[in-house]
């Protein structure tokens, strides 16, 4: 969604073509991100003509301020939905930055890793908006990600296993 998409596209901006093809996963309710992504990829194709990407949509796992219990149910549903997608793509790397959408995708990849089907490296970058506290996605994925990146020093102190590279968006 919105801010998350802008941030993640900035993160992608300096990546080489080794990080290709790129598969974007969006919430089905997200209207604006697709345009931003296509625009980004179009520009990219001007420099790297062989550049490839795809877009997939999954049901949104949680609405803002949705209560705990129903969130667990909708997230489980999203995980089940994500499993075939993750299985099909078998990504080497999952890069995410916090929208609820990323939790089921990461958890499904984590599961496929446990089942020895595909070992995916999960890199989570907490949003620049998060200075003192982690988002809910962050709190969950802190335990499931291979690399957890924060953008402010306070968070590095609170979450010692995180990586601090300064502001990267």
């Amino acid at each position, binding site marked *: 969604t919105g801010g998350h998409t802008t941030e993640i596209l900035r993160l992608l901006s300096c990546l080489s073509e080794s990080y290709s093809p790129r598969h974007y996963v969006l919430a089905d309710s997200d209207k604006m991100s697709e345009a931003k992504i296509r625009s980004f990829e179009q520009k990219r194709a001007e420099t790297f003509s062989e550049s490839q990407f795809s877009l997939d949509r999954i049901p949104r796992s949680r609405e803002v301020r949705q209560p705990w219990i129903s969130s667990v149910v909708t997230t489980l549903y999203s995980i089940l939905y994500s499993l075939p997608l993750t299985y099909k793509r078998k990504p080497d790397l999952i890069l995410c930055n916090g929208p609820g959408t990323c939790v089921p995708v990461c958890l499904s990849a984590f599961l496929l890793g446990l089942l020895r089907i595909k070992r995916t490296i999960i890199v989570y970058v907490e949003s*620049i908006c998060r200075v003192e*506290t982690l988002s809910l996605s962050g709190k969950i994925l802190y335990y499931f990600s291979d690399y957890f990146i924060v953008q402010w020093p306070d968070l590095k102190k609170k979450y010692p296993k995180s990586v601090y*590279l300064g502001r*990267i968006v």
Partner: protein
Amino acid sequence: FRFKDSLAEELQSADLVISHAGAGSCLETLEKGKPLIVVINDKLMDNHQLELAKQLHRDGYVLYCNCSTLVETLQSMDLSALKPFPPGQPEKFASFLDKVFGLQ
């Protein structure tokens, strides 16, 4: 004006921006090098939005007030005391990932 796709044009021609604490608005404004006053809405407060505004203020990049103190702030503000906002460095992220995958 309600939901224009982008305020980039307006931002470019502004001398001063007064905005809510949304991260997108704050960062877009700072990146364009415009002085910014962030107004916190005490009632609609989404605490996490406040974190970034507070930090930006602590670091000297923005001025900060709430609805009731806005006029006072406008009257007494010293915009020259605001520091220029350095851009983020996504190249550090790319470098980090390259190391993770042994691509350096």
